[in-house]
C-alpha cells in the first residue's frame, strides 16, 4: 500500500460486531463474552433474555474494560462489572458537568 492510499473503515454502530468479532477484538474466547452477557454484565439482557448478539462501540469499550480489570487485578467478573459501572457513571457525570459548562474540580 502506498502512503497516498486512503483507508476507509466501517463505523461501528452502523455495522455491529457479532460474537466472534467482539471476542477477537477483546482477545478473549467467545465463551468469555457469552458468560458475561448471560450474567447481565455486557450487552442487552431484558428479563433474563438476551435480546441480540450484536455489539456496538459502547459494548466493545465495556468488554475491553471488563477484560482489562479482570486481567490486571485478577478480579472476578462481578467485581470487574462493578468497576466498569462506576467508571461509566463517572464518565456520564463528567459529560453532564462539561455540557453545563462547569469545571470538573
Amino acid at each position, binding site marked *: 500500500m502506498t*502512503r*497516498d*492510499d*486512503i*483507508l*476507509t*473503515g*466501517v*463505523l*461501528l*454502530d452502523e*455495522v455491529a460486531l457479532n460474537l466472534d468479532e467482539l471476542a*477477537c*477484538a*477483546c*482477545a*478473549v474466547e467467545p465463551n468469555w463474552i457469552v458468560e458475561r452477557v448471560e450474567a447481565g454484565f455486557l450487552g442487552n439482557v431484558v428479563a433474563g433474555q438476551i435480546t441480540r448478539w450484536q455489539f456496538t*462501540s*459502547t459494548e*466493545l*469499550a465495556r468488554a*475491553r*474494560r471488563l*477484560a*482489562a480489570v479482570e*486481567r*490486571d*487485578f*485478577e478480579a472476578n467478573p462481578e467485581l470487574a462489572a462493578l468497576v466498569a459501572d462506576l*467508571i461509566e457513571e463517572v464518565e456520564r457525570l463528567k*459529560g*453532564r458537568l*462539561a*455540557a453545563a*459548562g462547569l469545571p470538573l474540580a
Partner: protein
Amino acid sequence: MEFRDYYQILGVSKTATADEIKKAYRKQARKYHPDVSKEADAEIRMKEVNEANAVLSDPEKRVAYDQAGSHYHPGQEFQPPPDWGTGFEFSGDGAHGSYADSAEFSDFFSSLFGQAGGGRGAGEHRARGGDHHAKVMIELADAYHGATQTITLRGARLDPAGHVVTEERTLRVQIPKGVKEGQHIRLAGQGSPGFGGGAAGDLYLEVHFRPDPRYRVDGRDVHETVPVTPWEAALGAAIEVPTPAGSVRVNVPSGSQAGRKLRLKERGIPGKPAGDLYLVLEIVLPPAATDKARQLYETMAREMDFNPRQGMGA
C-alpha cells in the same frame, strides 16, 4: 533496541517471589490504569507494566529473560544471543500469546519472545492475526464534514524466516462524517498478520475530539458558548456566530439573560437523527475604560431602577 529492566519497572528485586511480583503488579496497575490514572503518561506506563508482568509472572519467560539479560543495564543497547530461543520451551504463542494487547509490547519483548514463539509456531497451524486498538484525536469540525487523518502506528510482523520484526507504518484514514466521541472505526485487515495463511486481524480506531474551550459535546448534541453584548441581549439582535458547521446568522431574542440556550435543530453532529446545536449566551460587559464608557454606565446607574439582588432580600 534498548534493554528493559522488568524488575525495575515493577519495582521488585531480582529475587522477588511470584507473590511479590503479583502484589507489585497490582499496585502499579492501580496507579497507571488508564481509566482512573491522572498521570500524563499512564497509558504508556501501563503497557510497560503489563509487559513486565507478562514476563516476570510466567516462570518460563522469567528464566529465559534472566538468562538473556544477566549482563545488561536499563537503557543499554540490547542484542539477543545468536542462539536465542534454543533450549527454551514456551507454553504460549510468543508475542501472540494469551496476554491481551501483547501485540503492542515493545521491540525488546518481541525480540525475545516473539522470535522464540514465532519460530516454533509459524507454518504449523493456521490462525487469524490479532486485532489492534489505537486512539485517534480529531477536530469537532471533522465529525461535521468528514476528514482524512494521518496516523502513525508501531506494530510487529513476521519476516519470511518467521522472525518477528517491528515496523512503523503510516496510514491515511478516512474519518466518516457523523462520527461520535468514543465511537470506533474498524479497518479490516490492518491488525496483526495471520499465521499459516490465516487472515490478518483488524485495526480499531477509537475516536476522540480534541478539547476546544468553545464547544462541549454530548452524544451528537453540541453546546457552544456565544458572547453577546448587554444591548444585544436586552434589545435583541441578529448576530453572526461561527459554528463547527460554518457561520450561521442567529436571532438573539430581546430580554435574554446570561445562560439562555438557543437551540438550532439538527445543527449538531450529522447522523440519523442529527444532533442539535445549543448556543449558550454569555453576556460580556464592555470595560469602562474611556470617559464616554464611564458616562454611559453612570447614566444607566442613575436612570435605571434595577437591583439584581432584589430576590436575595437586599
